[in-house]
C-alpha cells in the first residue's frame, strides 16, 4: 500500500490515544453500541411498517451496516493512522477538512444526547418514576466519563465483560419465554410483498450506520489484519440478535407489538415459570444498563477524541468531563418528552443519522479515493 507521507504529515502526526485494543475488542464494543438502544425501540418501529415480516427488516438493515463498515475500512486503508476527523483534513485540505470535522463535533454531542435521553426516559418509565431525570442521567454519564478518561483499553475491557453478561442474560430471558411463544404468528410471510419489510428496515438501518464509528477506532487496533473478519462477525451477531428479538416479540405479542413502547420490556415482564420465576424486569433493566453503559462510553469517547483531534491538542483526557457535561445539556435540548423521542426515532432521526454516519463518510471516501488516484497518476 502506498502511503503519502506528505499528506499524512500535514495532519496530526502524533496519536493522542496511546492505548491499543484488539480487533476482537473492537468488534465486541460495536455490539452494544448498536444493540443497546435499538433493542428497545426497533421491534415496535419495524412492526409498524413491516407487520409480521418484521423479522426480515434487520436483515435488510444490516446492508447499511456493511456499507458503513466498508466506508470505515476504505478510509482506514487510505490513511491507516488517522481517524475520520484527521483523514478529512488530509483529504479535503485544512479548511474543508475542519469544516467537515466541525459537522461531527456538532453531530456527536447531539446523538449522544439522544442516546442518554433515551436511557434516562427508559429508566424513569420502567424503574424509577419518582427520580428526576437529571439524577439518572448525571450518575450514568459520570461513570461513563470515568471509563472514557481511563482510555480506550479500559473501554474495550469493560465492553468485553459487560457484553458477555448482556448476551448471556438476554439469551436466558428469551429461553424462559419459549413456552409462551406462538411461532405460527410468522405467517403469512410477505403478505404485501417485500416493500413493508424494506420500509421497516430504515430505522434499524439507521442504527446499523453507527458502524462508521469503526473509522474512529480502527487506528487504535493492534492486530489490524483481523479487524475486517471480526467486524463482519460483529455485524452478524448484531443482526442475529435483532432478528431473534423481533421473533420473540412477534411470537409473543403478534400484531400487538407495535402498540407498546418497549415490547422487549413487556416480554420480560410476561415471564412466569413455575410460580416463582416472575417479575424479571429488574434483571432486564440491570443487564440493559450494562449495554447502554458501553454505548454511552464509546460515544463520549469518540466525541472527546474527535474534539481533541480537531483542535489538534496533545491529550484528550482533560476534555472528557467538560464534554460529557455538554452531552448532558444536549440530553435536555434534544426532546421535551418521551413522545418526542419516540417520534424522533420513528421519522427524521433515521435520515439524519444515515446522512451523517453513512452518506457523508461515503462522499469523503469517494473524494479521498479520487484524489489518491490522481496523485498516483501524477507521480507515475
Amino acid at each position, binding site marked *: 500500500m502506498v502511503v503519502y507521507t506528505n499528506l499524512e504529515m500535514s495532519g496530526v502526526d502524533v496519536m493522542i490515544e496511546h492505548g491499543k485494543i484488539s480487533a476482537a475488542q473492537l468488534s465486541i464494543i460495536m455490539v452494544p453500541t448498536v444493540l443497546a438502544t435499538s433493542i428497545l425501540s426497533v421491534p415496535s418501529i419495524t412492526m409498524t411498517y413491516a407487520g409480521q415480516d418484521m423479522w426480515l427488516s434487520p436483515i435488510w438493515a444490516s446492508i447499511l451496516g456493511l456499507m458503513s463498515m466498508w466506508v470505515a475500512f476504505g478510509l482506514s486503508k487510505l490513511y491507516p493512522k488517522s481517524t475520520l476527523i484527521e483523514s478529512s483534513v488530509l483529504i479535503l485540505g485544512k479548511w474543508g477538512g475542519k469544516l467537515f470535522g466541525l459537522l461531527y463535533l456538532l453531530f456527536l454531542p447531539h446523538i449522544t444526547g439522544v442516546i442518554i435521553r433515551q436511557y434516562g426516559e427508559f429508566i424513569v418509565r420502567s424503574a424509577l418514576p*419518582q427520580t428526576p431525570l437529571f439524577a439518572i442521567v448525571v450518575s450514568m454519564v459520570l461513570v461513563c466519563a470515568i471509563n472514557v478518561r481511563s482510555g480506550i483499553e479500559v473501554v474495550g475491557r469493560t465492553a468485553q465483560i459487560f457484553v458477555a453478561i448482556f448476551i448471556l442474560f438476554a439469551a436466558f430471558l428469551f429461553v424462559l419465554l419459549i413456552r409462551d411463544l406462538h411461532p405460527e404468528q410468522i405467517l403469512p410471510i410477505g403478505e404485501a410483498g417485500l416493500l413493508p419489510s424494506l420500509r421497516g428496515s430504515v430505522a434499524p438501518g439507521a442504527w446499523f450506520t453507527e458502524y462508521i464509528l469503526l473509522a474512529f477506532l480502527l487506528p487504535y487496533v493492534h492486530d489490524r489484519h483481523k479487524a475486517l473478519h471480526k467486524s463482519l462477525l460483529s455485524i452478524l451477531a448484531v443482526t442475529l440478535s435483532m432478528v431473534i428479538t423481533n421473533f420473540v416479540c412477534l411470537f409473543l405479542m403478534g400484531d400487538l407489538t407495535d402498540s407498546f413502547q418497549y415490547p422487549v420490556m413487556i416480554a420480560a415482564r410476561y415471564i412466569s415459570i413455575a410460580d416463582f420465576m416472575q*417479575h424479571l424486569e429488574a434483571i432486564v433493566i440491570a443487564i440493559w444498563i450494562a449495554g447502554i453503559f458501553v454505548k454511552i462510553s464509546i460515544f463520549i469517547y469518540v466525541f472527546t477524541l474527535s474534539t481533541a483531534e480537531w483542535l489538534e491538542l496533545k491529550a484528550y483526557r482533560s476534555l472528557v468531563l467538560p464534554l460529557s457535561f455538554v452531552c448532558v445539556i444536549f440530553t435536555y435540548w434534544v426532546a421535551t418528552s418521551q413522545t418526542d423521542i419516540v417520534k424522533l426515532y420513528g421519522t427524521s432521526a433515521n435520515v439524519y443519522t444515515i446522512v451523517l454516519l453513512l452518506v457523508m463518510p461515503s462522499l469523503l471516501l469517494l473524494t479521498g479515493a479520487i484524489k489518491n488516484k490522481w496523485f498516483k497518476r501524477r507521480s507515475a
Partner: protein
Amino acid sequence: MRINRSPIRFIRIASLFLSLSTAAMLLQGCWDRVEINDLAIILATGIDVTDKQRVHISVQIFIPRQSGSSSSGSNGGSAGSPSSVTMVQTADGDNIAEAMNRLQRKLSRHVFWGHCEAIVIGKDAASSGIRQYLDFLLRFPQIREHAYVYVSEQHAVETIALLPPLERSSAEVLREMGNMKLGTKVTVLNLAESIDGLSKSAVLSRLKIIPSAFGQSKYATMPYVRGLALFKNDRYIKSIAEPNSIGMLIMLNQLENIVFTVKPEGEKTFIAIQPSNITTDLTPKVVNGKWAMDINVRMRGQVILNSTNLSLLDSKNLKNIEAAWTELIKGMVEPVLHLAQQELKTDFFGYALTFRRYQAKEWAKNKENWEKIYPNVYSNLSIQTRIFGTGKSNDPQGIPGQADKRNK
C-alpha cells in the same frame, strides 16, 4: 489459610470493601425508595359498574401478618384463620383511573399493583364494554400483562371478597385455576391480542361461587370456573355452560381436566374415559370460491370406569366404544359451530387468522367481505378418538359371579 500481611494488599482490600459499602448506600433506589411496609400489595382486582354506569373497583389487599415475630412462630394450621390474610377495599369513579385514584386515597399505604395476578370483571361491566379497562391494564406501568382475566356471574366484588379456606386468598385460587387450565387460560395480553386481532372476539372463563358449607361464614368459600363467557368486539354477549363450553374448549384447543361419559350402542350403562391428549387442527381451504375449514379433532384417552358388561380386551368392543365417543364429541362441537357461525356470527376460533395465514392470497382478495363470508364457511368436522389404555383392569369388575365364567 495464610494471612497476607502485605500492607498494599490490605489497603487494596480495605478500599474495595469501602467502595462496595459506599455503593450499597447509594443503591437504595434514589427518589423511588419505598419501604415494603409502606406498600398495600394488591393481589386481585375486581371491576364492576354501578347503576349509574360508574366504575366500581374492588381490590384484594394483602395484610402482612405480625405473627412471624410475636407469636413464637406457631402460625400454621389453626393459629391464623384465613380471614386475616387479605382485606377488600372498594372505590367508585367515572372511569377506572379515577376509581383507582379514589382507592389510593382511602388507603394509608402506597397501592402496589405489581402482584395483581387476577382480574375479575363483573358480568354487567363486561357487557358494557371492556375497552377502557384493557387500555388501562396495558398502559398503567405497574400492572402485569400476565394477570389472568375472568368474568364473574355475580358482581366481581363478591368474588374478590371471598376468603377461601384452602388457599391463602381468592386471588391465589384464581391464579392456580388459571394455571390448571380449568377454563380458558387468558392473560391480559392474550385478551388484548384476541380482541384487537382479526377475530374481534374473546372467550373467558366464567366464575361462580361455591355455596359455603353449612354453618360457615358466607365468605368462607371459593370461586370456581363454570362455563365460559363469550365476547364479541369488546362486549360480553353470552355465557355458555356444559356441554357447549366443552365443545368451545375443544375448538379452542384448550380442553384439559375432563372425563367423558360414553354410552356404547346397545348398552344401557356407560363407560367413562379420561382423555390425556386432545388436539384440534384447523386447515382452511378455498375451492372454487367456496370457503371451508377442515376441523380435525384427535383424542386419546383411557377408560377409568366401565359399568357395562363389555370386555375391554375385545377390539370389537373398543371400536364400538370409540364410535360412541366420537358421536359424543360431535354432539358437543357441532352446536358450538352453529352458535358461533350462524347465531352470534362471531369468530371465536380464529378462522380469520387461520385463513390469513394459510390461504394468504384468497384472504387478501376477500378480507373486506369477511363478515359476509364467515357465517357461510363450511366447517368440515372430523373426529378421531382412540382408547389407549383400560386402567388397571381388563375385564369389568364387580359383576356378581363373574369370576366363575371360566367354568362355563
